[in-house]
Each structure stands twice: as structure tokens, then as C-alpha cells.
């Protein structure tokens, strides 16, 4: 049992470290380190431009999408090499936020289901960050019950005509392309009537409306489709096979989001060591210490759970199901920690003061962002279902709509 690299891993790490030291945007280091949760905001400039510049540089030197094949803009690296890259990239990894959905989830789906000409055309600029992609899955009536979606696709000649509405689409407003799950047959059971496509987000009939969130930011959008035309060759997988295609995407979504989730614990420990409650430093209070201990062991438990998965990768094995707990634990912990840090500040905890020292000011932002962590990419409840059914082998919940044609499923209480 050890944490050491084997000789090949050590050599790879040295190469990565040297390249990052020589090429990273070091002038952004301190600001990125302090950047809060969600998209980093940079006072010194445009985060999107900085993100694209860093991605382009990585891509030119062969450090983009490490695990993808070289032909598609990757490096053909092993899973453990990808982990080593992420560890070494450190805070600069925060610049990858706008590419995560495209590179982490859509890329693998295109690789599995797109025509070869499309892979050649779209994957390299996706890897280099020159083109950004979004995922058009959720709808107002189809969130956790994604297969209940209603956006229609109807075949007309060699094209499909799309009508409907998507929601919670991260980054739609800056995306060049999108992958969309549609209903092509309402007369069969809900999972059997779905088909996946990709489209140019600048197609006529696509309208994007940003959603103002609880925290005042707008990372998500509503996207409306009115007679949008998609050529049949942009279909991913067979007609009616969209659910299976979407599972490829969602498995990758949980993998990429679940790894290395922050809980806010190191920030809270720092804060408690320096914050005077009026009765002395917070860290000296027994009640504070007890709460900190619980969050400390959750945070370290996630870290060492990830190390167990990395060890499996290092030996060429597939990691076990233990990593499925990452987002579930991190989301709740983040929310609890944020509320507690405000509690320590008394009435002042309510104040959002951009001029406040970063240590205390960041918890208000954390509080207002944290509810989203427990919902996006699979709600806490869906994650518990996944753990119960796929890890513990418990039976699925009974479904009132099982096997029922989609257009006969009840949609409201009578």
C-alpha cells in the first residue's frame, strides 16, 4: 500500500510538470486559486478568452483530451495518465469549466455513435476548445424523469424538423453545437421513442434565453426550437435508440463531475483558525470542532476513495462503484459548510461584500451556488437510486408508466 508513482507514471508526471511550469498562464494563478465555486470570475480579464487560450495552447502541444485517440485531437493516454495530468494542472484546471460538458460527455458519445466524417470534422476543434458544445437533454417536464421529454422530431425527406423546448442547458449561449435528445415516436413506451441528433446552435429557429439563477448568475439557459431542421446524417444512433445513446453521455457525466468535487472544508478550516467570534478563535470552540471533524472525515473520505479508484486505474483495472458517492457527499457538505460559516459571522453573515477578505466573503457565494450542486448532473435522490440499484443490487422502484405508450402517460393529477 503506497501513494507512489511507478517508474512510467513518475516519468510522465515529470514531463507534465515541466510543460505546465513552462506554459501555464501563471499570471492568473493567485486569482484562480481564490476563485469560488462554479465558474471562476477573473478581475483581470475575460475568463472565456483565458479558457480558450489555455485550451488552445494545451491542444497544440498534445495535452488536450488526453484519453482521446490522437486522430481526434487527443493523446491516446491511459486513464492513469489523465489523472496525473489533472493533479498537475491544479488550479489551471478551473479554466476548463466551459469545455467539461463537450469534452467529458459529448465527445465520447460522438466517438461511439457519429459517422466517421463527423468525428473527423468535429472532434479535433472540440478538443482544442475552438468549438464549444452543449447538451440539450432536460425539459420543463423532464428532469429526473428524462425519458419523459416531449421535444418532437419529425422526418421530412432527408431532414428532421424539431419543435419544443429544452431547459437547464449549461453554456448554450456561448456554444457552437449542441447534442439534442428528441421524441420521434409518441406511440411507443417512453424509452423506446427517443432519437439523438447534433445540430449547429446557430440554425434558424433556435432561440436561447438565459435563466437568472438564485445566485444572480446565468450559467443555464432555456432553448426553444421552432421548425429547426437537422439533416438525417447528424443523427446519433438508430431512430428510437436515443435512450441508449443518452446513457453513454450520462455515464460520462457522472464520471467527470464526480471526480475531485470540492467540499469547502479547507476553506472553512482556514476561516475558523483566523476568525474571532468574540469568545476567542472559532477553532477553539468545542462545538465548532465537533462539526469540523465530521466535515473533515467526509472530505478525506472522498479523497481516499478517489485514490482507491486511481489505484485500480493504475493497475489497468476498472474502478469499482465507490466513486458514485462523490457528488452526493460533496454537494451536501458544501451546503452545510457554507451555512455554518455564515452562522459563525452572526448577523454579518448575511452580508455579501465583494470588498471583504476572500476568506469570509466566499462562503456567501458558496451558500447561494450550493443548491445547484445537489441537482445538476443527477439529483441527490437519483444518485441514491443509482447506488441502491446498481451498487447494492436492490430492485428498481415500481413505475406507474412502465410499458405504457408515451402519449397515454398521465401528466397531471385529476
Amino acid at each position, binding site marked *: 500500500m503506497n501513494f507512489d508513482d511507478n517508474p512510467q507514471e513518475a516519468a510522465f508526471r515529470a514531463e507534465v510538470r515541466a510543460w505546465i511550469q513552462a506554459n501555464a498562464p501563471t499570471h492568473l494563478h493567485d486569482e484562480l486559486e481564490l476563485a469560488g465555486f462554479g465558474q471562476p470570475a477573473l478581475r483581470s480579464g475575460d475568463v472565456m478568452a483565458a479558457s480558450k487560450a489555455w485550451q488552445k495552447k494545451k491542444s497544440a502541444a498534445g495535452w488536450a483530451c488526453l484519453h482521446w485517440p490522437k486522430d481526434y485531437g487527443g493523446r491516446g493516454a491511459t486513464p492513469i495518465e489523465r489523472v496525473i495530468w489533472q493533479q498537475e494542472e491544479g488550479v489551471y484546471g478551473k479554466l476548463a469549466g466551459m469545455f467539461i460538458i463537450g469534452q467529458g460527455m459529448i465527445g465520447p458519445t460522438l466517438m461511439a455513435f457519429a459517422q466517421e466524417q463527423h468525428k473527423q470534422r468535429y472532434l479535433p476543434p472540440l478538443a482544442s476548445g475552438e468549438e464549444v458544445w452543449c447538451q440539450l437533454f432536460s425539459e420543463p417536464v423532464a428532469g429526473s424523469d428524462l425519458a419523459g421529454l416531449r421535444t418532437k422530431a419529425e422526418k421530412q425527406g432527408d431532414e428532421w424538423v424539431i419543435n419544443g423546448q429544452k431547459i437547464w442547458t449549461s453554456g448554450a449561449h456561448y456554444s457552437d453545437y449542441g447534442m439534442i435528445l428528441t421524441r420521434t415516436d409518441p406511440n411507443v413506451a417512453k424509452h423506446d421513442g427517443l432519437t439523438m441528433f447534433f445540430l449547429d446552435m446557430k440554425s434558424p429557429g433556435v432561440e436561447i434565453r438565459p435563466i437568472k439563477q438564485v445566485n444572480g448568475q446565468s450559467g443555464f439557459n432555456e432553448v426553444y426550437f421552432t421548425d429547426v431542421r437537422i439533416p438525417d446524417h447528424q443523427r446519433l444512433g438508430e431512430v428510437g435508440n436515443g435512450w441508449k445513446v443518452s446513457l453513454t453521455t450520462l455515464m460520462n457525466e457522472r464520471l467527470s463531475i464526480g471526480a475531485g468535487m470540492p467540499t469547502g472544508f479547507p476553506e472553512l478550516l482556514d476561516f475558523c*483558525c483566523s476568525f474571532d467570534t468574540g469568545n476567542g478563535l472559532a477553532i477553539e470552540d468545542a462545538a465548532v470542532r465537533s462539526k469540523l471533524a465530521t466535515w473533515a472525515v467526509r472530505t478525506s473520505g472522498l479523497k481516499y476513495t478517489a485514490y482507491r479508484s486511481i489505484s*485500480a486505474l493504475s493497475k489497468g483495472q476498472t474502478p469499482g462503484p465507490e466513486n458514485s458517492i462523490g457528488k452526493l457527499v460533496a454537494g451536501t457538505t458544501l451546503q452545510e459548510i457554507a451555512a455554518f460559516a455564515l452562522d459563525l459571522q452572526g448577523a454579518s453573515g448575511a452580508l455579501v461584500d465583494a470588498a471583504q477578505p476572500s476568506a469570509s466573503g466566499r462562503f456567501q457565494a458558496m451558500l447561494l451556488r450550493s443548491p445547484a450542486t445537489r441537482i445538476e448532473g443527477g439529483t441527490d435522490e437519483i444518485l441514491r437510486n443509482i447506488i441502491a440499484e446498481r451498487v447494492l443490487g436492490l430492485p428498481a422502484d415500481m413505475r406507474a408508466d412502465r410499458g405504457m405508450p408515451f402519449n397515454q402517460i398521465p401528466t397531471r393529477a385529476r
Partner: protein
Amino acid sequence: MDFDFSPEQRQLKEQARRFLADRCDRRAVRAVLDGPQSFDAALWQGLAEQGYLGAAIPEAYGGLGAGYLELCVIAEELGRAVAPVPFSSSIGLAAELLLSAGTEAQKQRYLPALASGTLIGTLALAERPGQVVPGTISASAQGGRLSGTKTPVADGDIADFAIVATRDSGNAAATLSLHIVDLKGAGVQREVLPSIDPTRSQARLTFSAAEAEPLGAPGAGWPLVDAVLDRAAVLMAFEQVGGADKALETACAYAQERFAFGRAIASLQAIKHMLADMYVSATLARSNSYYGAWALSTGSAELPQAAATARVSATQAYQHCARNNIQVHGGMGFTWEFDCHLHYRRSNLLALALGSLSRWEDRLIDRLVAQRGMNAA
């Protein structure tokens, strides 16, 4: 990175599981729960014969000299089986104290006997309710004679000898010294105390000028005990992880068998989400315990932090899983007949042994703050 047990260690674990399935089934545990015996002496001998007790004791002292990772694996299986044996007292505490502070002659005399199971040792520390700190100790020793009362002492009624902490006289700083006392000798009275877990005995020991042999330097007792508690805590975390896993498995199996409202209760989200949360705690505890095992087996300077992390996490997980195992079983879980209470009892007993959860939470924060200071420096 190889943050995992080796194939050989996994094999040892399977072997220990098979051995315990055969020698420590529910009848064996219940014989101790319901009967007059304080532990399963035949099982203890069997564990010794397998080499399990001496797994981490060097060959020079009659052990296998395999290592602490092997001992962790065995501790996990003992926890899983709710084994009614004095493992943490005799191996986790007594053997470790002798290894860290014993003279060559003391090691030669006691360690082979602990490894072979012919002697059982324990640590006699606490004297009254509350957390143990040096100021709460009033037992004293003079001229090789020890007097005072220790309560509760885990396995105090069955141990052959105890390592007893005494307060040094004429010393304002409240330092402690350790002594080895033969519990079968003159001047020792033992009384079994009823406890929440009859499968692990507790006793009150009263010493009246009992013959005592110093262990370690005079005045060095507290740092010695403190350091050994870290080592014992890692082993106990594995016992707790083993128990948590078994309680979770039992609950999952029952939820799939038990039908209500025309369906297995495991298909109800109220039940399956409870089980998923138990899995989460057990997984975090396992990963944290691996961290403790790594620190223990490599002699890392991080051991104090790793031990407290493993201990807090594993205590929370075992209590959580054992408590919800009863909840999933409903009324049947509250019967003497079902085994749920074995884990409920054991999880709550282990939460108090070696210093209770709040003490370990406190130690963890001390160590994280110290670590933070070192990182900043």
C-alpha cells in the same frame, strides 16, 4: 499509486472470513451473549493457531512478523463476525505497549505468550466517568507495589495481566507511569460489570499493594499511551468497518426478502435511500481506514492525523449502519432473536472504547490545525 491491499493480503482476508464463518457463527456469539463465559476461549486459541494474533508481532518474539496491513485485514474480519474475543485489549493495546516500551526481557516474556494466546493482556487506564486525562488518574505505585481502582477495564476479568497507569507523586505536571501487574496475583480484586455489550466484557479492578513491574521510563506513561491509542484506533477502525459492512449487507438482504404493500420493501425509496446512505458512510469509512492502515504500516509521521480520521469516520459509519439495520428490519429488528442488536451493541461499545467519539474529534482537529501550521511554515 497502489492504495490498496495486496493480492496476498486479500487472500488472508478470505481465509480469515472462512475461518470465522466456521468457528464464530451466530451460535458462538450467542453462547457468550447468553451464557456465563466472558469470551470464546476456544475461538481465541484458534485465532492464535492460525497465526492471526501474532501477525504483526516480530518473529523474534514468537509472532509471524507479517505486518500491520495483515493485522488490519484480520481486525476487519473479527469486526464483521462480532467476534467475542479480547483482540483490541490483548493485541491492539497490550502487545503494542510492550513493543513500544518493553525491555528486551519483558518482550521475550510477554509477546510470545500474547501471540500464542496463552496470556491475555489489557490496558487499565480510566478511573471515573468522563474523558481520561492525566489529572483524572489517582492510582499510585511505590516500591513495586500498586494501589488504586480502575474502571472500566475492557476484558479486565479475563486478562492475565494488565498494563496499569499510575499518577506520579510530588509532580505538579501530572505525569503518569505504566506498570505490568499480574491480575492473578495477590492484592488484585476483579468484579465483572454489566455493560451494553455482553459479548465484550468490562471489569472493575481494585489493587491493594499489588506487585507491579515498571513498563517504560517513569513519567513517560501518558505519551506512551497516547501514541499506542493511535495504533489501536486504526485496528479498531477496521473492526468497525467490518461491522458496518456486515450490518449493511444484512439490511439489504432483509429488505429484498421482506414484502409489504405487495412489493419488496427494498423497492421503496424510503428504504433504498436509507441503504444508499449507509453504503456512503461505510465507503467513506473504509477509504479513511485505508489511510490509517497506510500510516500505521509505513510508520508515517501522519499517523496521529490518519488514526483520528479513520477512528471518527469508522465510528460514525458503524453506528449509522447498525442503527439503520434495525430500522430496516422493523419490529423484528428489536427482538433478541434477530442478530441486529449484536451490531447495535458492538457499534456503541466500540464508539466508547479507546476514548469516545468526541475525544477523537477533538484530537483530529488538533492534528489538522497542527498540519496546517506545518504546511504554512
